[in-house]
């Protein structure tokens, strides 16, 4: 394939126009010693028909979660995406545009982002939201850095119950020396407020928590907020945007910065990216906010118009004094989130949250009912929960996969037993969950039998 619309003849004419004898002459500034004097060692280009075939083959070498009865979550969720969302994303004026620096030619992107900001404010109960970050994990880090700027302190206390990859990313960034971090344990599946309070002092910039946390359990955000504020620290809360339609807003609960992974809002799982990070804060901290912001104003004729604003926080203006180095964000994913929230509306979103919660509670009690699973903790949860399997969890997971069931994610929990983390979205039906439970019973029995046979054989072998 070639996407160059210039013929050989035209190329010759262009060379004459610039007064060059050859293409080579245009590259004369590159010293010979650093010129590549051979073709790149890559395969030959492909025709579109061959490329389409090869891409399809590669895609078919995967077995996507969407083709399974999928209970995997752990940060990426398999929600239904209304058809309109992708049809909006496919509009080339959106996806082939650059960052909307030329407002007069970018009103579409700007208004869509302004509406997205408004929806995030509404969900989080905050006053200001930015145009998006890369993902939940990097939004979480940016929140820590922002809290350090706002409080002029440099110690971060992070909940041990947040997504382990988010904690890892936070640790990676902490090696800059700009902040230090301490993890406060959550052995019981959620934070103990007294234990958190012990970690807090006047040097702490922020307490970072997730609600619900990695195990799906709701934290006591109000009490955690009070504890943080008691030492002059900020509360950063990471939230699931679907659940925000039914839970007390982090804003009402006392959070100073609210972040999260926005993938559940109309973005496919796509192996974990691109989704988007959402980021919201109080107006009084506006000047410390990282990332782009769209504001509403008027044009020279007094007509309503939108523009990027308060850019003096950003890298292209403020350089090393910017609030962040972020430039490219996840605008198209934010467009998807805005389109999704518009498509489902308020009743739709609360209905989806309610359905997910009800289904997850049903599945959990059915699984516990098999007596093969036990609950490591019993606190209120949303649509994700952890259970301990009485046996080889990896083996069970693998056998269920053969039956077309992606049985959540097997996680290691500190020194404790392996846990299985299950997420249930509105896509799952009662019939599917009943089938899943029936398979669990059957497989667990088969595994038990196989184990007994093995034990007997081992015993016999020893006796012989």
């Amino acid at each position, binding site marked *: 394939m070639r996407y160059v619309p210039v013929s050989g003849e035209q190329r010759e004419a262009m060379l004459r126009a610039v007064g060059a004898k050859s293409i080579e002459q245009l590259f004369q500034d590159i010293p010979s010693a650093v010129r590549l004097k051979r073709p790149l060692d890559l395969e030959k280009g492909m025709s579109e028909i061959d490329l389409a075939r090869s891409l399809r083959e590669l895609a078919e070498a995967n077995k996507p979660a969407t083709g399974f009865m999928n209970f995997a979550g752990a940060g990426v969720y398999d929600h239904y995406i209304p058809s309109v969302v992708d049809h*909006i994303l496919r509009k080339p004026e959106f996806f082939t545009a*650059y960052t909307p620096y*030329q407002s007069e030619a970018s009103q579409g992107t700007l208004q869509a982002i302004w509406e997205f900001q408004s929806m995030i404010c509404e969900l989080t109960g905050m006053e200001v939201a930015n145009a998006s970050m890369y993902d939940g994990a990097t939004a979480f880090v940016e929140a820590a850095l922002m809290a350090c700027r706002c409080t002029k302190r440099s110690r971060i206390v992070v909940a041990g119950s947040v997504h382990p990859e988010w904690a890892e990313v936070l640790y*990676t960034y902490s*090696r800059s020396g700009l902040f230090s971090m301490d993890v406060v344990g959550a052995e019981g599946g959620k934070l103990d407020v007294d234990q958190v309070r012990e970690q807090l002092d006047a040097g702490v910039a922020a307490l970072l928590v997730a609600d619900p946390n990695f195990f799906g359990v709701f934290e006591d955000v109000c009490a955690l907020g009070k504890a943080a504020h008691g030492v002059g620290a900020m509360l950063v809360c990471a939230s699931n945007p679907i659940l925000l339609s039914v839970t007390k807003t982090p804003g*009402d609960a006392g959070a100073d910065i609210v972040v999260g992974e926005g993938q559940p809002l109309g973005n496919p799982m796509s192996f974990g990216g691109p989704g988007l990070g959402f980021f919201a804060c109080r107006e009084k901290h506006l000047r410390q906010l990282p990332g782009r912001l769209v504001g509403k104003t008027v044009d020279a004729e007094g007509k309503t118009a939108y523009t990027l604003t308060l850019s003096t926080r950003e890298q292209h203006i403020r350089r*090393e004094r910017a609030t962040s180095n972020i430039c490219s964000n996840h605008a198209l994913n934010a467009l998807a989130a805005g389109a999704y929230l518009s498509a489902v509306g308020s009743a739709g979103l609360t209905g989806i949250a309610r359905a997910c919660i009800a289904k997850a509670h049903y599945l959990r009690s059915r699984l516990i009912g098999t007596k093969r699973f036990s609950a490591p903790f019993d606190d209120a949860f949303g649509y994700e929960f952890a259970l301990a399997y009485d046996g080889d969890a990896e083996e069970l997971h693998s056998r269920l996969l053969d039956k077309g069931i992606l049985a959540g994610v097997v996680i290691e929990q500190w020194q404790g037993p392996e846990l299985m983390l299950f997420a249930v979205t509105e896509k799952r039906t009662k019939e599917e969950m009943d089938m899943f439970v029936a398979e669990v019973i059957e497989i667990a029995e088969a595994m038990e039998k196989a184990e007994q046979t093995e034990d007997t054989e081992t015993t016999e072998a020893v006796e012989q």
Partner: protein
Amino acid sequence: MSSEMSNHPRPPCSVGPQKSIFGLGTPGSSCVAVPEIDVPDIDLDALLGESRREGPPVLPHVTEVEVMRHYSHLAQMNFGVDSGFYPLGSCTMKYNPRINEDAARLEGFSGLHPYQPEKTVQGALRLMVELSEALAEISGLPGVTLQPAAGAHGELTALMCFRAAHEAAGDPRKKVILPDTAHGTNPATVAMGGWDVVTVPSNDQGLVDLDALKAVLDTDVAAFMLTNPNTLGLFDPQIQEITEAVHAVGAFAYCDGANLNAVLGKSRPGDQGFDALHINLHKTFSTPHGGGGPGAGPVCVSGDLAHYLPSPLPVRVADGEFSTLQLGTSVGRVRSFFGNFGVLVKAYAYIKALGAEGLEEVSEQAVLSANYLKEQLKEVFDLPYDRTCMHEFVLSGTRFKAEGVRTLDIAKRLLDYGFHSPTVYFPSIVDEAIMIEPTETESVSTLDGFVEAMRAIADEAVRDPDIVRSAPHTTPVRRLDEVRAARDPHLRWSPTQ
């Protein structure tokens, strides 16, 4: 865009401002039915207690046709590469092939969960390994991470690897040097990673002032960051001396790969002596810009630095199998999961489509088209650095200042001629800078049409400066009151409006 039209402004736009989506539709409407609950319902008040939300969120209430029309209307107020020529310097606004979009949407890619068992994601791992291998070959740097989500994220990732190497050698360092032509992300990245920024001026040819660089190089310098070709579109012929001088004090040479589109198959940053490079897949490898993102910023590093890259790394194991590798010496994760996988699929498809020969043609045509525009426009505008350029060049609009016409006015007036504006006022070392990057995907007639429009505007600037100063006239909205936007920030819709 027909070239016959381009020396005349186009007719005014028929699409005007659109009501906010919150003001459309009828309360209670939505596109999708609330999902049925086929299990025992749950009492949310009992479950959540005091943590129950006080009232439902106020979200748009629109039917499917209303949503579709709203966003169609918004799209019509936007200018993308598909709308016309987008000569935005430094941004590489090339055509985005449609098969790439289709590829990322194949269910075998878009439906993958990041924690699926490895045996069910062999195609995805293979894609990432092969993309890494291709980027290693293109860059001349063998270690590759696909995790960074954007160019600036890649910059930070590479600097973290430098820090790890210096610390491992018991030689931690505090400073990073940048030329005054650097993109804003460079100094912002340095600060975000906890280093001090040291800026060196460019020489009178717009290149690195080697003496000035050597004067600030010492054993507390962690790295020198350079965009090559630089932001004036010039390839620095002293590149070997530069990287050697940097290495001589034990520092690392970092290449900002924003301008990689100029040198594909011609010169590799690794061969130029760079230790690390980030690649903006949304620029050089045509994954779209998406109105600001998502992009992807893979980082390529030398063999010595490869074991510091963020983990996990997708790797090839025996018998055509693929897996992931955790490195004990890694700087750690820089984001969740595997990076912007959907973007990686598009870049992979692009490299597969073009192959070695096609990629080299990309750079040849990008450079030829830039020189073609430069030669014609330098008669009408000033060209401060008059030499063969690479994929972009920087003009100056200084001569029109006397008429009270600024570069910004010229940029806005181009919109009336149906072209997107170039990058303006960057790099800051050029007064009234106009930075033009045509890319390889524009036809001769489009380029000629652009030259005609620029000439027409230069003529207007003298003959009828008011029409340029008050441009644009044909866009959905006229020039904006930016001061009001910043002074009285109006950042969200609220029910009381």
